[in-house]
């Protein structure tokens, strides 16, 4: 049987010719559709409702129509409403002298004004509006078709189109033009990007973005995505011709994918390539100076991590030759952790193979590159590492720990006059660690934790007879203050007898802020000369490591780490600060490093970056960022931005200048403008809206 409609009203009069006259707070409900009005006349014979306003007609998809007067079919799917407004998703409003409902699917509007902007009595012109002679809204396809459409900004006609199709705000996925954007750079001139999105079935889509600029730049950007039941891939790329490199086809490609394999294994891959080093900078893409294409299979469980990968490196850095850099790297790692049975405590076993290949075949070093390794050296390594540690809570609350690790490596080196052949190395370290954490509940509930830590380590101090390639870049921070081997890779192992001493003090305030301080030092029985000066670990006594972290619950987090020697000469200093509040935010970072040939850094680095935003008014937010090279006393990069966001429009203005230059990269200025009319498609969420009469 057909579902019955319900009419509720303060009073209902039954007049002669089979009509009902409902008066006062009248509501009609039928199959999810609802109409509210002051007066409704239901003519049963004609099966029609004539309704007097103010009328609110709502259907189950969130669309509703406000009108003064209407003639509708009894099931509310058919009929005409006069001086009405169609409101989509409480955002986009289409006002028309007359709206007619057709078959419960289409809504046709006569002369229409469409806008999602707040309109107040004191200034009735909305920020933007689209006027059209006719508009048809298709509730099933969720598309809005404008005829003879004219876009007006603040009342000024800006754009006219005979036909225009825009997505209904609830539409999440459909083919069509996306928001265009303007980009001006000194290298390419002013250009327009017009992205077009194409859906290819349910699980694939393609976005094509032509980008034409005044200085003869012609680019086609492409992004293809495909989802599978077990994963997905995304391929983005571009082809360009421009006057920066007039006689060759430039471009880049980046393909990534991730898949779930059986037995909980995951497969991920990444392929990236670029035609020339400057392409990323010229076209505003994320900067990379070493391309890293890899395929990786891995699985991680509670006590086990298995990983296999193949990586292809391609450097686009000035002065680096890919022939003498290890370009192909293959690794296999199996790491298992387990309880050590009768021994107690926790043990670990790691098996690893590593191989790297250089395309050059010269077994000696030439000055093509800056390093001293044989140009063509290839290497393969197999390693086993066993580690064990056990904690005891000693009297007076001292946590005593016995720990140790033993490694066995077999290296097979070829195309290297000095190190050719197979070398095996056995190494190990045993240590005792004592931690003595103290706690204090201070006045007002503040919690203090003070934890002195001492570690005594014995390991053979024989010298290394392997070339050190993967352990050249050594860092010294709280993460490896108490580790048995601070070298990041396997080529070098920390040797000799030494003590790692440190103390940390942390204060937690009930008001939510916290302050942490850590200080530490490494003291060796003798200088094993294994570390470069810039690492802070050189000498018999390492530099002092002092780290501080301040966190305020108002949104401030500052972390600072310094290495300095006995006469307070700073070897390395790094700071990151992030202050985020509703109306403003500031992110700052500072890095200062010594020059060190071992780390292939021939000039010291001292750089300060600042990134700020300030909300000037409810709608305007100003942004500024700069990267200042303190050492060269020059700004490497500076940028300002202005963002406007209200309930119906978002405008993004950005101006940035990059001053760095090299043989392949020129300084460039980049200006960007993008305007987005909110309320169409499920784009960016609307911002704050102005209150009328304020």
């Amino acid at each position, binding site marked *: 049987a057909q579902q019955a409609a319900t009419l509720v009203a303060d009073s209902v009069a039954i007049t002669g010719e089979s009509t009902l006259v409902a008066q006062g707070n009248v509501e009609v409900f039928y199959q999810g559709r609802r109409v509210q009005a002051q007066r409704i006349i239901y003519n049963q014979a004609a099966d029609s409702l004539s309704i007097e306003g103010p009328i609110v007609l709502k259907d189950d998809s969130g669309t509703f129509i406000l009108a003064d007067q209407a003639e509708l079919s009894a099931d509310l799917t058919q009929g005409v409403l006069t001086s009405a407004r169609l409101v989509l998703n409480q955002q986009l409003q289409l006002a028309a002298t007359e709206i007619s409902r057709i078959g419960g699917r289409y809504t046709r509007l006569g002369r229409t004004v469409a806008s999602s902007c707040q309109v107040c009595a004191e200034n009735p012109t909305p920020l933007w509006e689209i006027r059209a002679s006719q508009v048809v809204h298709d509730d099933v396809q969720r598309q809005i078709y404008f005829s003879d459409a004219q876009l007006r900004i603040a009342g000024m006609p800006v754009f006219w189109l005979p036909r225009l199709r825009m997505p209904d705000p609830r539409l999440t996925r459909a083919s069509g033009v996306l928001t265009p954007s303007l980009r001006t750079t000194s290298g390419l001139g002013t250009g327009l990007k017009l992205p077009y999105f194409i859906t290819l079935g349910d699980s694939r889509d393609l976005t094509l973005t032509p980008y034409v600029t005044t200085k003869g730049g012609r680019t086609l950007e492409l992004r293809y995505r495909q989802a599978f039941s077990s994963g997905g891939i995304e391929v983005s790329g571009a082809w360009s011709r421009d006057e920066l490199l007039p006689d060759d086809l430039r471009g880049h490609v980046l393909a990534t994918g991730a898949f779930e394999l059986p037995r909980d294994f995951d497969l991920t891959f990444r392929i990236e390539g670029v035609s020339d080093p400057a392409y990323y900078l010229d076209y505003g893409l994320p900067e990379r100076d070493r391309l890293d294409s890899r395929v990786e299979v891995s699985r991680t469980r509670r006590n086990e991590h298995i990983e296999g990968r193949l990586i292809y490196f391609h*450097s686009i850095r000035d002065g680096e030759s890919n022939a003498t850099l290890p370009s192909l790297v293959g690794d296999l790692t199996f790491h298992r952790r387990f309880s050590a049975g009768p021994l107690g405590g926790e043990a670990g076993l790691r098996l690893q193979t590593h191989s790297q290949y250089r395309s050059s075949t010269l077994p000696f070093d030439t000055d093509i590159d800056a390093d001293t390794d044989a140009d063509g050296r290839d290497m393969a390594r197999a390693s086993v590492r066993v580690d064990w540690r056990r*904690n005891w809570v000693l009297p007076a609350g001292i946590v005593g720990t016995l720990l140790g690790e033993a490694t066995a490596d077999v290296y097979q080196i070829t195309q290297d006059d000095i190190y050719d052949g197979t070398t095996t190395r056995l190494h190990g370290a045993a240590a005792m660690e004592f931690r003595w954490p103290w706690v204090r509940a201070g006045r007002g509930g503040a919690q203090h*934790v003070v934890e002195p830590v001492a570690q005594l380590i014995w390991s053979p101090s024989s010298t290394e007879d392997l070339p050190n390639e993967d352990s050249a870049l050594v860092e010294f921070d709280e993460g490896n203050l108490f580790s048995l081997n601070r070298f990041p890779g396997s080529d070098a192992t920390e040797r000799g007898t030494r003590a790692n001493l440190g103390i*940390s003090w942390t204060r937690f305030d009930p008001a939510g802020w916290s302050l942490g301080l850590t200080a530490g030092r490494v003291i060796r029985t003798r200088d094993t000369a294994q570390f470069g000066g810039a690492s802070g670990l050189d000498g018999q006594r390492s530099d002092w490591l002092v780290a501080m*972290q301040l966190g305020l619950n108002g949104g401030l987090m500052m*972390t600072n780490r310094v290495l300095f020697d006995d006469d307070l000469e700073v070897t390395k200093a790094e700071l990151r600060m992030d202050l985020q509040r509703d109306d403003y935010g500031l992110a700052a970072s500072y890095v200062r490093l010594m020059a060190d040939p071992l*780390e292939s850094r021939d000039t010291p680095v001292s750089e300060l970056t600042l990134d700020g935003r300030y909300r000037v008014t409810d709608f305007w937010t100003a942004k500024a960022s700069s990267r200042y090279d303190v050492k060269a006393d020059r700004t490497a990069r500076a940028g300002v931005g202005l963002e406007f966001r209200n309930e119906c429009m978002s405008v993004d203005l950005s101006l940035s200048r990059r001053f760095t*230059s*090299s043989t392949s990269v020129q300084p460039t200025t980049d200006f960007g403008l993008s305007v987005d009319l909110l309320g169409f498609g499920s784009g960016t969420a609307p911002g704050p809206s102005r209150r009328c009469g304020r």
Partner: protein
Amino acid sequence: CGFTPAYAPGGPAAELQGAVRVDNPTDKNAFDLVERLEERIGRPDGPRYALGYTITTAPIGVGITTENAITRYNLTGSVDWGLTEIGSGRRVTGGKVQNFTSYSATGSTVAGLAAEEDAAFRLMRILADQIVTNLIASSSAWATP
């Protein structure tokens, strides 16, 4: 001066060793975080609490030379963690710890790769140690024997 050894008998953290089971890791970062947490507070035996965590990390390029080469990265990381009582599921304590480590990208590709992975390994150990410090500091409130 009010300080007492946390692990002394009757001390607030006396029951901490072996009392916490950290959630299973699903990637390398989580694997390293769980390893360090278990190094500090022991592998779970008859645990009374479960430690859940969400790790986020992001590399940021710094030290950009005048020739526009990126010579160093700061790897920033944060862990949102929560300790709940096994059985009742009652949330006992929790918070967010943040820090960063750095790695240079100047040497050979293999050196850069090892440095990048070691930076992630050290970051997880620092964040794990910060979580343990939080546990020790708050243990008097929840680690009743």
